[in-house]
Structures are given as structure tokens and as C-alpha cells.
């Protein structure tokens, strides 16, 4: 039973990171119907920028808390700029191109960003500075750390902020209108270009926050880390119904928990035949099974013929 609880906790932490990244995919998809394949790399850049900024500030003798906050701010700013630039360079010129064209530019940008990161930060694994004190708690036989609590709280707060933005502000209303029908929204005076750019910028900021949390959690970073993370987060977004904000959040958390439980129990379930290194399979198996029964995700609306 305590293993169960332990895995739920681990899954919740991992899941809230997935959820934050998934929001970036789903916002862009909801508004433009485009898979921003480069989003995982934006997250990676966020982590690496934090390492550089926070690491050098700590070395210069700054208090850890200040350095950490500065690192986070730097990561958010760099990623926002990056998101804006991505939209401008790789997606805006292709808004009316055939559907697969922006997919290829997204992949191209993803390759470019990965290799830029490799040039700047090198091809070795880097240690992430420890920004939070290590404290352990115990609850009903399961252990969890302060870092885990903070990750869940920060992502909950960030997602709450996003929901407020989308449902309570004028920009949010413009975003929802554009998602429904860009042509009509622009007739109503919505500046489509600005709304789309905003979606990229906000999504990238969320990605930066997620990147910093991944770094603090695993204490290690690498120029290729964005790929699998992005893939999982995208899976989470599709699982929840892509284009749906609440769906992305729930999909992310669900995916995290399923993965953790799967990794914890697969050995017992298959009599030791399959080990926990099959963890990565769960995400995809669950996705395939869910889509077989609900072709537009758990919470997605029935999508039109967007082939």
C-alpha cells in the first residue's frame, strides 16, 4: 500500500511538470491547429539558462534564493523571446501553407535549437545547482521532499494564473475567439497576429517554469533532454484532448501517475517478465488505448475534418 501511495506522489510531481509543458502545446494547437514540435527544446533552453545564471550568481556569492529567482526570471524571459522568435520566423510566414509544411519547419527549428544549445553548453551532462533545501517528509509510509511539494504548488499556481488569464482578461477572450474562428475573430477587431504571438510567448513562459522544475527535481540537464519530455507532454496534451486547457492539465497529471504506477507494478503484473525499464511504454500504450475508444482524447470536443 505504501508503494502505491509513494508512486502516486511521484506521479503527481512528474505529472504536474508534464502538465505545464503540455499547456504550451495545447495553447498553440488550440489557436492555430499546429503541433509546435520545438516546444520541448524551449523547455530545455529554460533549464540550461537557469544553470548558467543561477550557477554563476551562486558562485559570485549571492544567496541561493536570490540566485534561484534570478535564474527563473532569466529562463522565463529568454524562453518568451524564443517563443516569439519561433512564431515570427518559422510559423507566421506559413500560416496558409499546406498543413504538413509548418510541421517540417518545427522539426527544423527543433534541430537548430538542440545544436545551438550543444554549441553553447557543450555535449556533457550538467549538474543543476541545488536551489531548495533538502527536506524529507513522511506521510503514511510514503516519503516526499520539499522540492516535490514546491513543484506541485508552483505548477498549480501557474496553471491557476493561466486559467485566470484565459477566462478573465480581454486577451484571454481574444484567444478563445481566435481558437473558435480566426476569420470572424479578426472581423470583430481581434488582432490575430498579436493573439497568436501571445499564445507562443505564454506557452514558452510556462515551459521555462517547467524546465526549471525539471532541473531542480532531477538535478541534471542535457541538451537532448527536451525531446523525450516534449514527447511525453505532447502525449499528455493529446490524451486530455488537444486544444483543451483543462484537458492538458488533467492529461499531464494522469500520465505522470500512470507512468509511476506502471513502473512500480509492471514487474509484479508480468511475473518479472517485463521490468521497470518499460516505463516509457505506458505513456504510449495508454494513449493508444484511450484514443481507440475516445478518438479525440478524454476531454476533447469532436474535432472537425482538419486533415
Amino acid at each position, binding site marked *: 500500500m505504501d508503494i502505491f501511495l509513494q508512486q502516486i506522489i511521484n506521479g503527481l510531481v512528474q505529472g504536474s511538470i508534464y502538465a505545464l509543458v503540455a499547456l504550451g502545446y495545447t495553447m498553440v494547437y488550440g489557436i492555430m491547429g499546429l503541433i509546435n514540435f520545438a516546444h520541448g527544446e524551449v523547455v530545455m533552453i529554460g533549464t540550461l539558462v537557469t544553470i548558467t545564471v543561477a550557477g554563476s550568481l551562486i558562485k559570485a556569492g549571492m544567496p541561493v534564493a536570490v540566485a534561484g529567482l534570478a535564474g527563473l526570471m532569466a529562463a522565463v524571459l529568454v524562453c518568451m523571446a524564443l517563443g516569439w522568435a519561433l512564431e515570427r520566423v518559422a510559423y507566421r510566414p*506559413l500560416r496558409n501553407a*499546406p498543413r504538413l509544411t509548418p*510541421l517540417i519547419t518545427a522539426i*527544423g527549428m527543433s534541430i537548430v535549437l538542440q*545544436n545551438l544549445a*550543444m554549441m553553447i553548453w557543450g*555535449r556533457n551532462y550538467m549538474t543543476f545547482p541545488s536551489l531548495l533545501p533538502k527536506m524529507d517528509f513522511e506521510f503514511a509510509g510514503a516519503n516526499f521532499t520539499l522540492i516535490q511539494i514546491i513543484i506541485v504548488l508552483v505548477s498549480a499556481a501557474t496553471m491557476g494564473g493561466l486559467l485566470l488569464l484565459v477566462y478573465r482578461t480581454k486577451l484571454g477572450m481574444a484567444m478563445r475567439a481566435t481558437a473558435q474562428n480566426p476569420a470572424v475573430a479578426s472581423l470583430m477587431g481581434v488582432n490575430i497576429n498579436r493573439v497568436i504571438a501571445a499564445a507562443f510567448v505564454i506557452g514558452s513562459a510556462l515551459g521555462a517554469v517547467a524546465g526549471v522544475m525539471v532541473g531542480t527535481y532531477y538535478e541534471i540537464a542535457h541538451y537532448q533532454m527536451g525531446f523525450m519530455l516534449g514527447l511525453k507532454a505532447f502525449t499528455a496534451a493529446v490524451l486530455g484532448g488537444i486544444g483543451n486547457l483543462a484537458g492538458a492539465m488533467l492529461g499531464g497529471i494522469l500520465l505522470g501517475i500512470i507512468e509511476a504506477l506502471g513502473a512500480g507494478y509492471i514487474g509484479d503484473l508480468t511475473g518479472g517478465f517485463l521490468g521497470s525499464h518499460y516505463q516509457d*511504454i505506458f505513456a504510449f500504450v495508454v494513449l493508444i488505448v484511450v484514443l481507440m475508444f475516445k*478518438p479525440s482524447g478524454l476531454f476533447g470536443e469532436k474535432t472537425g475534418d482538419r486533415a
Partner: protein
Amino acid sequence: MNFGRFFRSTAGIALTAAFLIALPFVAAMGGQAWVRILDFAILYVFLALGLNIVVGLAGLLDLGYIAFYAVGAYAWALLASPHFGLHWPIWAILPIGAALACLAGVVLGSPTLKLRGDYLAIVTLGFGEIVRIFLNNLNSPINVTNGPQGITLIDPVSFGAFKFSGTTQIFGFALSGPQKYYFLLVALAILVIIINVRLQNSRIGRAWQAIREDEIAAKAIGINTRNLKLLAFAMGASFGGVAGGIFSAMQGFVSPESFSLIESIMILAMVVLGGMGHIPGVILGAVLLTVLPEVLRYGVGPLQMAVFGKMLVDPESLRMLVFGLALVLVMRFKPAGLWPSPERKRELQETGK
């Protein structure tokens, strides 16, 4: 200039044939490495044309195509290597590999029939990853795939006593291993091109194109969309399986690393960049995307030395950077691909897109 007519004229065929025959000998002057690159270019033409059936003709976005290639490659590796001590002949393995890949295509296709567009893309992507993860981990408790180490000492292609590895003397010419594979691959590629051309204008090909344009309308005029979509998956997958088998034999070594998602993406990029659904375009895309990174590999380092006098940045990452930028720029200025089919070009112009 009408390329189609040119390629069908006697002079055109003779010129193309002469070019294709001379190519490996010209490339060999720069070293056997270039012949090997040519081999891979043709192997990718093969793969890209297989994927073109699924994506270009039937309009099903498949991001896990490499899984079928992997199935074919591992089928060959397991049936013709010391790993299990089996050394079956090509007549047996290649059809088995194709059949297994075809089966995998149907297995993937059947649960995804209801999905469309991007949902299909992510499921196929997941399928590709599942196959790779299994290949990586099926070394215990029973060692089937030998895990991340992969399988070595795979038999080369051979017909009777004629082996495709090593150098042989034919009519006074010394033919190296890669050169022999080149001719085998060209023969196979021509076969695939003929199948592709014939398919495109057949009843099945037209039905696929109807599904691509509007699935509901296609169903309404009596096209069995379910069977045809499965057929597209199965057919594309079989081509992937055959290509995988040849890859395995040519390399003599397979490991799960060769079948990662980025490979699927590269093949898709070849199809889209060249001009989706247009056979000459797809061939161009495949050749370009295989040769360009290699040219960059040999060009980027010396160029830096010449311009700056020293290596400023790691040539390996610079070459991929340039490659990524090239993808973005081509799509930016040629959204329909480098060589789109005339109909598609017209459609894009008419709608002002």
C-alpha cells in the same frame, strides 16, 4: 520542360541508365565512403516512396514509419546471423521481413482507423517508440534482440555463391561491396518506382487520393475506406520491411539506435520537402536530405579552417544546425515542397495560398 515525357523517351532512358551506371564509379574516385552514401540515398528513396503511399497518396500522417523498417531489419538480423545460429537465404528472409512488417502495419492500422490528422500522427509516433523500446529491452529474460548492443555479424546479401560483401572481379572490373549493393538497390528502387507509378493511377490509387481529399465524400461514393486505409498502411509497411532487410545486410549490424523517432521524422521530411504525393519530388527530397548532411560533414570543417584559420565550433553540431536551417528555409520559400506535382501547385496558386 516535360520531365515525364523525357524519362519515357528512348534517349531519356538511355541517358538516365548511363548516368546511374556511371555514378558509383565516379563516386568511388572520392572514396568508398561516397559510394556508401549513395547506397543510403537510394535506400532512403525506397523508404520515402513507401511512406509516400501512406502520407502522400492516402493522406495518413504516419510518424512511426521507422518501426516497419526496424521490423524488417531485425527479421533479417535474427534469421541470418550467428545470434540464433540461423543463416537462411534471401529468398526466405526478405519475404518474411516484408510479411512481418506488413502485419505490423495492419496491427497499427486497425485501431487507428477512426483517428484523423494529428491524433493519428501521435499514435503512430507512439507505436514507433514502443517498437524501439521493445527492441532495446528484449534481451532478458529471453535474449531475443540482444538489447542496446544490437546484433552483429549479420550475413550480407548473397545469391548462391555470389556475395555482396567484399570485392569481386566482373568482366575485368573490380566491383567493391558498396558498388554491388548500389546496383541491387537501384534495381529495387526502380521496381518500387514502377509500383508507385502504377498504383497512383490505378483504381486503388485514385481511391486513396479521394480519401485524402475528403474521407466522408469518399465513403459516400462507395469507397471502402476501412480496407483501403489498412491497405495503405500494409503496403507502405512492406516497403519499409524490405528496405530494413537490405539495410541490415548492408551494414552487417543493427541496434535499436538506428530506429529512433528522428529517423521517422527524417523520412517524413524527405516526403514533404520534396513534394508530397509527387514521385520525382519525393526522390529528390530523399537524395537531397541524405547527401546534404554528408556534404556538410566534409565541407563545414575545412571551410572553417579556411575562413577563420581554426575550428571555432564543433563541425558536427554546426552541420546539423545548417541542416535544420535548410529545412526551415526550404519550407519557408517553397511551402508545397521543392518539386510538387503540377496539380498541387495549381491548387495552391488558385486559392491564393
